[in-house]
């Protein structure tokens, strides 16, 4: 069997047999503790500066951000953004309770359907799980309330994110996800969600003469509506 052949060739190279049980236990303990390594100092700053770093990095990577003070303002903010981009007032939305609870009636021209995305959807609205300040990166894990197709099929992706969900480093975003698992969220029993996307700006390609051009296969525009729900981060 190839599995045995591969493992024994590796062990032959390492000049040992299978790892003794005590050493295996040590490696399992390392995985259970999943220690962090060096975290760059750039994100080790006070909360307001962390949020500002996130916003600055999103913009550097050609994304856009609008900050709103109250969840009730989100529908109007989305309606305005779409009008400003000359986009129709229709979108596919993640069936997430927080998004569904928004007062959509306040933007009566807007129409949405809560489902996975299809090829014909021009605009999607996703629920952001976390933002990572060090590079302006969104963490978008899949679950029934956050379909993956919303991140890749539409021409324009809008992500609603709470400022309280912005962390400094990638490791802190994983910590949030690990904790959510323990709290019995959809990612129960410590199992990874099927898909976790880190998204940094709209899609692009450098394949033609190594020159970055926006608008490859994924969304051509990435817009973040940032809800300032964290008093410490203002």
């Amino acid at each position, binding site marked *: 069997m190839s599995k045995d052949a591969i493992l024994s060739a590796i062990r032959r190279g390492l000049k040992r047999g299978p790892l003794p049980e005590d050493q295996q236990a040590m490696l399992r303990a390392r995985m259970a503790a*999943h220690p962090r390594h060096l975290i760059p100092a750039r994100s080790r700053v006070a909360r307001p500066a962390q949020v500002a770093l996130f916003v600055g990095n999103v913009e550097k990577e050609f994304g856009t951000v609008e900050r709103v003070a109250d969840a009730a303002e989100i529908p109007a903010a989305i309606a305005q953004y779409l009008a400003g981009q000359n986009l129709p007032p229709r979108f596919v939305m993640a069936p997430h309770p927080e998004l569904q609870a928004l007062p959509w009636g306040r933007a009566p021209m807007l129409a949405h359907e809560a489902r996975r995305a299809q090829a014909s959807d021009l605009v999607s609205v996703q629920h952001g799980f976390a933002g990572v300040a060090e590079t302006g990166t969104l963490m978008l894990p899949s679950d029934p309330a956050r379909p993956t197709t919303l991140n890749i099929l539409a021409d324009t992706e809008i992500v609603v994110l709470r400022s309280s969900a912005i962390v400094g480093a990638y490791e802190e975003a994983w910590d949030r996800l690990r904790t959510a698992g323990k709290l019995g969220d959809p990612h129960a029993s410590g199992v990874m969600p099927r898909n976790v996307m880190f998204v940094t700006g709209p899609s692009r390609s450098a394949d033609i003469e190594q020159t970055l051009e926006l608008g490859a296969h994924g969304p051509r525009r990435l817009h973040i509506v940032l809800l300032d729900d964290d008093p410490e981060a203002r």
Partner: protein
Amino acid sequence: MVHLTSPAFKTNAARAMRDPGLQKALGTAKGAFLQRRAAAVAALPEFEALRDIGREIKNHTLAHLDFYLETFAANVERVGGKVHWCSTAEEARATVLKICQDEGAKTVTKGKSMISEELGINDHLEAHGIQPVETDLGEYILQLRREHPSHIIAPAFHLNREDWEADFRRMHTDLPPDRVFAERRDILAEARTRLREKFLAADVGITGANFLIAETGSSVIVTNEGNGDLTQTLPRVHIALASIEKVVPTLEDCCSLLRLLARSATGQDFSVYTTFSTGPKRAPDLDGPEAYHVVLLDNGRSNMMGTEFQEMLRCIRCAACMNHCPVYGAVGGHAYGWVYPGPMGSVLTPSLVGVEKTGHLPNASTFCGKCESVCPVKIPLPKMMRHWREREFERHLTPASMRRGLGLWAWFAQRPALYRAVTRFGIGAVALLGRGRGSFRSLPLAGGWTEGRDLPVPEGGTFMARYKAQQRKAAR
């Protein structure tokens, strides 16, 4: 497997240097990568410290590779995925074909994967009536041209914008032939539209993997275009192709390596999409593939363990070594004659396909050391190329003329006084020949050397003579 033309490296290289289109492309492309990498590295003061961490993470993993691979496989299976261990390219090809056939697949979309090049999977699928569609923009045009990648992260490194326009006009015949490509963006838009239908129609999606995470059983891809995500999300089946050295223990270990990868590769702080896939669609999910397979390929790597080439298995395929290599910059990727070009290819290719046919590659180096100095996991590439040269010499695979020359040199070198006398004479003779010009374009008996570079005319004596003169000056 991709056809091996490494034995003809010298002819390949000579042809490459006479190809004006290629030389233009190499000139345009190179500068962009170098400047962007330098800027990204300068903006992260911890970059040097992270290189040491990256090296340590990979060394730790390799020292326990058997354990982490078994843990990875167990975790994939725990979430309902399947792992296929494959010793050879042939076995991996058969495995992929069987999965596609069991699925009744007609078309297969593909994300960028160097392992798939190693397997030559496209030809194999086509031969069995299954249509593979490359979806990475660079891979897409290469499929239209029936070519192989010339670079590990920018497959169409050797092409100019004119080539793109001409090929799109030639192949997309249903579009108006006189359409205008005013910007690079227009080329991108045409490919996007064209590939949309393919993404939606595909039965199986094949991606590579930049990392495998043992702790969670995840495969990780890093892309800018989003094609990899469409490939692994929309079809009913996702197959991830990965070689055994891609595994790392934890998500945190992966984060440290990710901080190095994009900066070293394209000079971005982070790529647009870094995606962790773990098993098939969960029952209540609204999207995602119904089946998830990992094809775990050895293809000669396990034999590198415990040898002087083990450290090569730390490679995270960032391409910094080739971007900074003067030889790659002069001849491009195709001259190397197999899947992996540049310094990393010169070390890896002989390990995977045998040094007998690839002995020229470790010699394609100026030993300037730039590759090692930019490698994010500090692989001693020049040292390893030297190891290959030594092995090759021991095996008497070096061409006879070179062996004679080196043997003669060794004989003189062991007799310092004689050596100095002879080199003094030689230098004088060469200087005389070259009087009035700065460098030689060609030189008798050294055609192989001067064909691709100019030899500066020596000015004033041997190194030893100059060194002595300096010492005398300093002593005064």
